[in-house]
C-alpha cells in the first residue's frame, strides 16, 4: 500500500514536472526549421526531367554564349523547340531521344546523357571528318619489337627518327617513364609524337608530357570557371604556365601528329605543345573539347555530363572547336596503298629539313665566327 502510494506520488510529481519542463521547450523537436536549401526530388515525370536537364545546362554549361555566337544556338529557343515534344505518356526511350536531340544542338563531345540502355552523344567533331589514321599502317611503323613505357609505345625508325605513340591520356605515365623514353631516343635526329585518335584523359599527364619540351616557364593558356548561374558569370581567367621538367628535356625537332579525334586532354596537350620551341603540329585540326566536364544527375536517375570550366589558348582564344596544325596534312590513299603513312613520312621529311637547316645555321655561325672572331 505504502509502495503504491509513493509510486503514485512520484508519477504525479513527474507528470507535473514534465508538463512544466515541456512548456519551456521552444516548440523544439517539432520545428521543421526554415529551409533555405531545397533540392529537386526524384521523379520519372518527363516534364520534371526535361526542366531539370534544361536548367542544369542553362546554369552550369560554360559555352552557351560562345555557341550562340558560333552556331546560333539560343538555349531559350531550344526550350521552346523541344518542350512541346514532351507528352505525359511517352516512354523512357522516347524521352531519352528528345533530350539527346536537344543536347546535340550544342555540338559538344563533352555533353552526354547516360541511361541504362544508351549513351546520348554528339560525336560530329570526329565523325564528320576523315580519320587520317590507319592503325594497321601505324603498327607497321611500330613493328613488333617496339618498347612500352607505361602508356607510351616507342622505337627508332630506320632514318634515326624517334617515333612515340600515345594512344590515350587515360593510360598513366610518370616522369620516370618519359625520361627513360627520351633518354633512349637521345641519339635520334628528331622525334615524332603521334597522338592521333587519342581522345583524352588526365590533364596531369598531358601537362607532364609537354613539360619535357620547354626549357623555360611559358604561358600556354588561361582557365576560368562559372562563378554563378548566369550565362556570362565567369571568374577572372587565370593564366596557365607550363613549367619545364626537372628531368630530361627534348632539345631537337619534335613533330606532333594530330587528327580530328584529338580531343579534350589531348587538345590541351596540343595547345601546350604549340607554344613549345622546336615543336611543330602536323596533320589535321584537333577535335577540340576545351571545357572540363562535370557531371550531374537528373530526377529519374540519368547522368548528365557537360562542359563546366572553359580553357583558352595563350591568346585567350577558345579551342572548343579544335586547334589548327602548323602543317596541314592528310592521309593519302596512294601512300596507303604503298604501305606508307603520309603524316609520318611528311614528319620525317620535316625533321630532315629542320636538321639540315640547323646544320646550315651552325656552319654559317662558325664561318661568321672565323671571319669576325
Amino acid at each position, binding site marked *: 500500500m505504502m509502495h503504491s502510494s509513493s*509510486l503514485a506520488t*512520484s*508519477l504525479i*510529481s*513527474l507528470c507535473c*514536472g*514534465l508538463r*512544466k*519542463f515541456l*512548456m*519551456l*521547450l*521552444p516548440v*523544439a*523537436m517539432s*520545428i521543421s*526549421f*526554415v*529551409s*533555405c*536549401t*531545397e*533540392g*529537386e*526530388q*526524384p521523379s520519372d515525370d518527363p516534364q520534371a526531367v526535361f526542366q*531539370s536537364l534544361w*536548367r*542544369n545546362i542553362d546554369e*552550369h554549361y*560554360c559555352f552557351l554564349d560562345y555557341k550562340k555566337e558560333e552556331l546560333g544556338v539560343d538555349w531559350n529557343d531550344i526550350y521552346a523547340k523541344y518542350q512541346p515534344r514532351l507528352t505525359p505518356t511517352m516512354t523512357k526511350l522516347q524521352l531519352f531521344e528528345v533530350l539527346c536531340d536537344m543536347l546535340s544542338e550544342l555540338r559538344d563531345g563533352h555533353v552526354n546523357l547516360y541511361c541504362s540502355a544508351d549513351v546520348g552523344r554528339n560525336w560530329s567533331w570526329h565523325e564528320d571528318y576523315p580519320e587520317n589514321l590507319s592503325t594497321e599502317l601505324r603498327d607497321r611503323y611500330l613493328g613488333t619489337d617496339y618498347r612500352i613505357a607505361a602508356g607510351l609505345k616507342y622505337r627508332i625508325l630506320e632514318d634515326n627518327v624517334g617515333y612515340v605513340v600515345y594512344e590515350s591520356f587515360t593510360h598513366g605515365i610518370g616522369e620516370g617513364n618519359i625520361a627513360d623514353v627520351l633518354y633512349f631516343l637521345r641519339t635520334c635526329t628528331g622525334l615524332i609524337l603521334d597522338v592521333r585518335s587519342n581522345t583524352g584523359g588526365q*590533364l*596531369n599527364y598531358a601537362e607532364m608530357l609537354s613539360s619535357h619540351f620547354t626549357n623555360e616557364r611559358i604561358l600556354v593558356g588561361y*582557365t576560368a*570557371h*562559372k*562563378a*554563378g*548561374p548566369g550565362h556570362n*558569370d565567369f*571568374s577572372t581567367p*587565370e593564366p*596557365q604556365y607550363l613549367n619545364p621538367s626537372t628531368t630530361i628535356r627534348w632539345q631537337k625537332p619534335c613533330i606532333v601528329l594530330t587528327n580530328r579525334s584529338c580531343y579534350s586532354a589531348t587538345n590541351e596537350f596540343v595547345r601546350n605543345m604549340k607554344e613549345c620551341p622546336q615543336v611543330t603540329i602536323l596533320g589535321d585540326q584537333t577535335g577540340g573539347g576545351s571545357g*572540363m*566536364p*562535370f*557531371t*550531374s*544527375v*537528373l*530526377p*529519374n*536517375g540519368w*547522368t548528365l*555530363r557537360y562542359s*563546366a*570550366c572553359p580553357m583558352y589558348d595563350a591568346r585567350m582564344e577558345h579551342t572548343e572547336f579544335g586547334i589548327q596544325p602548323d602543317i596541314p596534312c592528310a592521309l593519302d590513299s596512294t601512300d596507303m596503298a604503298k604501305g606508307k603513312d603520309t603524316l609520318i613520312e611528311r614528319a620525317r621529311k620535316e625533321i630532315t629539313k629542320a636538321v639540315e637547316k640547323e646544320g646550315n645555321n651552325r656552319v654559317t655561325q662558325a664561318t661568321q665566327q672565323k671571319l669576325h672572331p
Partner: protein
Amino acid sequence: MITDVKKNLSGRLWLLALSLLWGTRLCAQELPPTAGESSFVLGIGRSHQLDTYLSPIEYKGKQVTLMQEYHHTLRRNPGVSFGSVWQANGAACNNWHNGIDLWAADIHYDATWQYQWQMKRLRGLTLKAGGGVGLTLGGVYSTRGGNNPANAHLQLRMLAALGADYRFRLWKRDWRVGYHLDAPLCGAMFSPHYGQSYYEMFERGHYDHNVVFTHPANCPSLRQRLVLDIPVSRKGRTRLRLGYLSDIRQAKPNHLEQHQISRSFTFGMVKTLGKR
C-alpha cells in the same frame, strides 16, 4: 487558469533574465558542485543530403551517428559548465534502387561553455545558456561524378547553445530528461566556387572565394537533442540514455546549396565521473 500559467511563465522568464544579469556568482551559491559526466550514444535514422556542386537532386538514405559527449562544472566557477561533443555521421543514400548513389561522412566537434541556473520554483530543473566553438570535417561523395565526384566539408564556427535538464525521482531512482540545442552564429567554411573544379584549386592553385564567411542567413543550422536518462545502477552512476537527435545543417556558399538533414533515434550509456 490561463492567467495563472501566464503569470508562472512570466515569473520564470523574469527569473531567467535576472539570473543572466546577476551573473554566475549568484548561481554558484545556488548550485552545488557536480561531477563530470560522459556519454556515448549510437544513433540510427534517416538522412537527406543535398549538394548542388554534385547534383541538384536531394538524396535520401540511412544514417548512423556516433556521439560522445562530456561535460563538467568548472571547479573555479561552479555556475558554468564546460561541454564537448564529438559527433560522427555516416550516410549512404540511394534514390533509384540501383546501388548507393551518394556517400556522406562528417565529424563535428563542439566545445561549449554554458551558464547554468537551477530553478528554485521548479526543483530539479536546470537551465543552461552559453556559447562555444565548433569544427566540422568531412565530405560527400557521388558515385556518378567525373571531375566533380566529391565535395569536402570544412567549417569553423562560433555557436550559441541552450539546454534544459530536469531531474526527477521515480521508483526511488534519479531520472533525467534533457533538451539541448545549438546553432552556429558565425564562422567560416570552405567551398569551391560555383563551377570551380578541385583540379583548378589544388593542381593549379587558383583560389576564388574558397573561404566563405558564414552567418545565420547563409548557413542556418540547428542541432537539437532530446534525451531520457534511465538509471540502471543502484547508485545511479550509470544510466541508459534514449534520445532523439534532429540535426539540420544548411549552407548557401558561392551560389551553391548544401544541406545535411538527419533525424535519428539514439541510445547509449551515460556515466557519472568522479565524486558526486
